[in-house]
């Protein structure tokens, strides 16, 4: 069998996860490379094909908004894994634990005493003007003072391999079902390697999620529901998958009924009380009496029941303010303020358009920056300076000037790359990394992640809604 030849594989200019600058396979990828050499490129492509079929048959689809080409798509899973050494993982684990602990303290503070604002560490105006800061949550004390129970932080690696936090996602981000299902599929694709390589398992996620949800109330047995906007939501597959995995009811707003500040499900046998709701409906839509009046997705009275302590909402409403992209710039200071520690994982340099100096810099250098809306996600509403026309840049400058509070900019970072199958060849593609964090009694990072990959050559946009795919992420137990 002919070995897979990577001598033509391009690594210059980027940090590659598998191949070093010297063209050698990095040590934590060696066993994997040996294995695919035995398999051969042709068989590898066959395995990729069976994977596509497996995803279709499992209905692992997501819906794309504004897409006329049929609403359902598969999130392409590239079978070459992203492997993370245990040393690298150790940094991620400690860094994220630190960051989430600090952000949770921040949330508890700004909705109560506002010490950090009064001490002028974070500008008061910036926080209070965020569209995701919810006045209705002022004075709220969620159980165990935990606000962001479920989160997923986007990490990237720059040219030198150093990890950075690109975005915090504290509003129940999606993708964890792909982390779990991708692993199931790859275990069938490369059974021998799993045995030899000592990959840390991820299957414990669902059990830990259940345990975390149960830890928030004192009753037993706990009645848990996953609240979804419904089958047309882009992440519906995940909502149903998680509900099934943790033995919860999957409910829509119309299935719930609030009476005397208690929340019930409408069942064929009557009304059944709910204790904990893992909600995948945005803050704005959960209760038309308190938030968006036109919401059809929500349940009237839900927020009031929550404030009375008769039901727990996971995550708490109002967490979005801590992943506002302008607040993001202050996270290093937030960590220092609450924990008196230096951040273990750095931020990407961020220019806040609300600040005069930064605004000037952004306008002058827009061609080499990435501009983002502070309250948007999913790769929507952003500009990549190096890949845009002068006309679009001007358009963005106008938008920024009109509403500077809502924009930030960051230097373009050449995301690291992982070898990826493309048209029967192996080529480098840019990736990011989204590990998942649970916070109940304590912060827990699951040893695995969703690696999102930009499938288009040279593209830096990894979002699934914008042509991105995924890779299984293997965290190794010890250094191989």
């Amino acid at each position, binding site marked *: 069998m002919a070995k897979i030849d990577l001598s033509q594989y391009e690594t210059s200019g980027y940090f590659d996860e598998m191949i070093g600058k010297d063209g050698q396979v990095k040590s934590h990828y060696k066993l994997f490379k040996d294995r695919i050499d035995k398999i051969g490129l042709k068989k590898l492509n066959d395995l990729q094909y069976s994977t596509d079929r497996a995803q279709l*048959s*499992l209905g692992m689809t997501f819906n794309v908004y504004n897409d006329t080409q049929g609403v359902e798509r598969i999130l392409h899973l590239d079978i070459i894994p992203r492997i993370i050494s245990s040393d690298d993982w150790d940094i991620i684990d400690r860094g994220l634990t630190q960051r989430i602990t600090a952000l949770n303290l921040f949330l508890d503070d700004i909705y109560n005493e506002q010490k950090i604002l009064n001490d002028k560490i974070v500008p008061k105006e910036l926080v209070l003007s965020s569209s995701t800061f919810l006045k209705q949550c002022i004075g709220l004390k969620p159980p165990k003072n935990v606000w962001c129970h479920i989160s997923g932080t986007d990490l990237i690696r720059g040219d030198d391999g150093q990890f950075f936090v690109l975005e915090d996602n504290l509003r129940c981000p999606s993708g964890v079902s792909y982390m779990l299902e991708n692993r199931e599929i790859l275990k069938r694709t490369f059974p021998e390697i799993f045995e030899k390589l000592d990959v840390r398992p991820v299957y414990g996620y669902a059990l830990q999620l259940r345990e975390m949800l149960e830890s928030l109330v004192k009753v037993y047995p706990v009645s848990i529901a*996953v609240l979804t906007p419904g*089958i047309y939501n882009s992440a519906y597959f995940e909502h149903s998958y998680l509900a099934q995995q943790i033995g919860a009811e999957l409910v829509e707003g119309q*299935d719930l*009924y609030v009476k005397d500040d208690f929340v019930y499900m409408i069942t*064929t046998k009557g*009304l059944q009380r709910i204790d904990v709701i893992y909600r995948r409906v945005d803050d704005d839509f959960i209760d038309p009496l308190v938030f968006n009046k036109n919401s059809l997705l929500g349940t009237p009275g839900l927020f009031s029941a929550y404030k009375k302590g008769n039901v727990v909402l996971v995550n708490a409403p109002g967490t979005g303010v801590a992943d506002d992209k302008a607040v993001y710039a202050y996270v290093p200071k937030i960590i220092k303020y609450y924990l008196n520690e230096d951040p273990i994982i750095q931020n990407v340099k961020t220019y806040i358009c609300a600040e005069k100096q930064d605004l000037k810099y952004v306008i002058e250098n827009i061609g080499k920056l990435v501009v983002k809306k502070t309250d948007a996600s999913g790769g929507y509403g952003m500009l990549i300076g190096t890949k845009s026309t002068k006309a679009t840049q001007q358009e963005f400058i106008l938008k920024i000037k009109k509403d500077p509070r809502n924009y930030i900019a960051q230097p373009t970072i050449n995301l690291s790359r992982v070898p990826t199958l493309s048209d029967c060849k192996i080529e480098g593609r840019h990736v990011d990394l989204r590990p998942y964090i649970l916070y109940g009694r304590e912060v827990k990072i699951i040893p695995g992640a969703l690696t999102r990959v930009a499938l288009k050559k040279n593209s830096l946009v990894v979002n699934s809604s914008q042509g991105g795919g995924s890779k299984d992420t293997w965290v190794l137990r010890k250094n191989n």
Partner: protein
Amino acid sequence: MLSRVANAIYWMNRYIERAENYARFFDVNFNLSLELPPNVSNQWKPLVVTTGDWKLYEKYNKNIEKEAVIYFMGFDPNNPNSIYNCIFNARENARSIRPEITKEIWAQVNNLYLLVKEGFKKKLWEMKDPRAYFTQVKEGCQMLYGIFDATLSRNDGWHFSKIGRMIERADKTSRVLDVKYHILLPKPEAVGSPIDLIQWSALLKSASAYDMYLKKYGKLTTMEISNFLILDTFFPRSILHCLIQAEESINIISANLDRNLNEVQKQLGMLRSQLAYTNIEDIISSGLHEFLDNFQLKLNNVSVAIFETFFSIEKIKSQSESSFKFI
């Protein structure tokens, strides 16, 4: 179980049963058209009439011909009951209740969906002999029943599935009998006269009843065929058998709800008794068509009652204001 979920699992099963029936009808009709003498008018119109969608067919088609019928019943997006739409709707229902069903069920619904999508893309209705394809659809549905049976706990979800399947099946058997009988034997006096063997065996095959019928009776007579399809208590597609099965599940679901019988129990119980306490001679002498017509009306009332008793969220909410139970 959530009312919305119960509704979805019930309909998912009705759609699958409907698709399976249609796929079988195609196969039987195709075989029939091969054996009929050339001067006999074609059998495609009665097939559409059986489905109850003749008016809709006429709206979109001028002529009655094989290709148009296969398209209409198999794939037409304008026909809410086409196999394509049935499978699509079954899958949408399955999607909305994914945590209630097993991975195996979900994967099989998906495979069926991919199969009908492929059929649509390949324009199966233009094929000379699409029997192999519809056999695949039929077997795909049957496999799904098997997976339901082998992997699902006998909880309310399973019972609502069974009720959906049984009600749909009773409806289809009654329709196929009604249409064929109408053509074959318009007057009760004709009972006992020499019969068209090909047509009568096709009727039995349409209900997957041919083998079991022969096993029991050994020869074809109109009285016995009608008896077998309506009143046989052992044959799984006879109307009475379907009602008994559905009633059994309704009673299990309704247990402990209330001492009084609910509306579904009353209506279904009465309908089942009406069949159980009659005999085929009486049915035929007072008119089979009238009997079946009346039956379909009552069956429809049963399904309305199922909706209002178990699925209607508004109804359940309004009850809860006064007397509804909190569990």
